[in-house]
């Protein structure tokens, strides 16, 4: 057997897999620094999508005929890949959804409506994306449960010292947290929160939308109960994502969406549910999208998750260093060791929209806004931040162009 040295990735080479970089934006090569919101797609994934539609497409699990068998095999093959990617015990614990948001709503509705009530407490954090905040707030309200958010301190860190008080305030039934913050890049102490959740008899729901694309996720090791993520952030198609859940919990739960394919028997008097994972996949599934998701997983596995993580960390360190040169620039978030390749920042007295606009004129795409994290913005005392985020195809030159653009914005608009 060959000895494997620590794998590194060659971003410049990988970049050639991504057709989007072949075009220019406003006459300049595209510097795409918004991968946290969505990643671009390699040819391998686009080819798979196309070939699937051209040669193997049919509805799955429904036909006796060859095409349907082919499609089903592809779809279920993708399920196995995605399940293995997060180290699930069994493929039937892996439910295809339309994205992380839907995955979380599934748990909030299907588990929450039947298991929450007055006296119960649902706990999120002030660092959550709205998609792991609002569903819980909403279902808590519908069921009469209390809704609490673990506060952040001034540096944007979770105040775990508040846990005891929260535990005393009622029966903690749900703890929901993102593994990586999309706004600050923080890698959160999910295992610790999970252990606390289990002490309280609560379920631990992990939003891995921002983690799964960037480092290896292992549901056994996290010891969580549910885990949600989206394909589009990991080089896969839009409109597909996954929910991993413990089989016992999934089996005991009511379904979420109802309809074709998730039933065992339908009668006017009573309907009974199908087995896992179909019970949670009502209607025609995201068939081609799941197949594309599988191809994206293959792609990421080929590159290597560890290599991706290392690459992003190098870029992060470099970017933080270079950005420190820009006068009046403030960055938010933790030290690089505890952080994914995401930098939120503001230029003093220059509005993020203007920063992003000026950068766009240079062909540099970053995001400006609240990043679906209004509670965090309130804590930071800002309406919005700029955010640059990196992925496997990001090269240092893109960071150089970001920094140049920031100087320009500074010069033009700072008051």
């Amino acid at each position: 057997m060959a000895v494997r040295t620590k794998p590194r990735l060659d971003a410049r080479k990988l970049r050639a897999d991504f057709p989007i970089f072949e075009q220019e934006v406003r006459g300049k090569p595209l510097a795409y620094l918004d991968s946290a919101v969505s990643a671009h797609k390699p040819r391998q994934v686009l080819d798979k999508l196309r070939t699937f539609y051209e040669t193997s497409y049919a509805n799955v699990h429904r036909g006796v005929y060859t095409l349907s068998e082919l499609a089903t095999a592809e779809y279920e093959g993708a399920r196995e890949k995605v399940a293995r990617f997060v180290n699930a015990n069994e493929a039937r614990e892996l439910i295809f959804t339309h994205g992380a948001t839907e995955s979380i709503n599934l748990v909030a509705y299907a588990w929450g409506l039947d298991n929450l009530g007055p006296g119960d407490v649902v706990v999120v954090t002030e660092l959550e994306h709205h998609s792991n905040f609002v569903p819980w707030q909403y279902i808590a309200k519908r069921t009469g449960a209390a809704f609490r958010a673990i506060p952040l301190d001034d540096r944007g860190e979770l105040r775990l010292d508040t846990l005891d008080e929260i535990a005393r305030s009622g029966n903690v039934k749900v703890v929901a947290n993102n593994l990586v913050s999309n706004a600050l890049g923080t890698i959160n102490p999910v295992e610790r929160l999970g252990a606390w959740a289990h002490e309280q008899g609560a379920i631990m729901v992990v939003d891995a939308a921002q983690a799964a694309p960037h480092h290896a996720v292992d549901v056994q090791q996290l010891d969580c109960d549910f885990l949600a993520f989206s394909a589009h952030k990991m080089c896969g198609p839009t409109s597909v994502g996954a929910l991993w859940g413990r089989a016992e919990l999934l089996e005991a739960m009511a379904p979420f969406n109802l309809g074709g394919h998730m039933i065992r028997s339908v009668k006017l008097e009573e309907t009974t549910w199908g087995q896992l994972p179909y019970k949670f996949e009502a209607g025609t599934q995201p068939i081609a999208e799941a197949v594309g998701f599988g191809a994206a997983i293959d792609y990421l596995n080929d590159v290597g998750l560890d290599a991706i993580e290392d690459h992003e960390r190098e870029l992060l360190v470099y970017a933080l260093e270079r950005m420190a040169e820009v006068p009046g620039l403030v960055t938010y978030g933790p030290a690089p060791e505890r952080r994914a390749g995401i930098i939120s920042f503001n230029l003093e007295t220059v509005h993020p929209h203007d920063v992003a606009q000026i950068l766009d004129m240079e062909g540099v795409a970053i995001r400006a806004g609240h990043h679906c994290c209004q509670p965090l913005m309130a804590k930071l005392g800002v309406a919005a931040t700029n955010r640059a985020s990196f992925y496997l195809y990001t090269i240092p030159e893109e960071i150089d162009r970001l920094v140049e653009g920031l100087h320009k914005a500074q010069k033009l608009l700072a008051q």
Partner: protein
Amino acid sequence: MSEFDQMYREVILDHYKNPRGHGELDDADAHAEGQNPLCGDEVSIFVAFGEDGDTIDEVKFSGRGCAISQAATSMLTEMVKGRSAAEVAALPRDELLDEIGIPLTPVRLKCALLGLSTLKLALHKARGTPLPEEWAGASSDLELK
């Protein structure tokens, strides 16, 4: 041999058209009903044990289904008669599949195994033993009556 002849080979057609063990038992020692949710097919299995309370003395089935499921269940009744309930409750599915001897896609596999899973369910119910892991998935397709 064409794929066609392979799938509907003589012995399958024979079991389908002249099913062995077709019928019901009034005082069955073990009984279960199974359903294939894809096509709505149903099968009922009835088992009578011998004096030792373990040997399968008689096994009958009724219900509706495709040629594959009917033939497979018919073959199954021949296979298990005289064997011990404990043994049959743990029967490897390949033993039946080898007997059927035709290539089966996943969908048709469900048809072929409907009788066997229902039989196992009946035996486990009668003996009060839990269904083996291997059948956990399949069993939840079965209407437990």
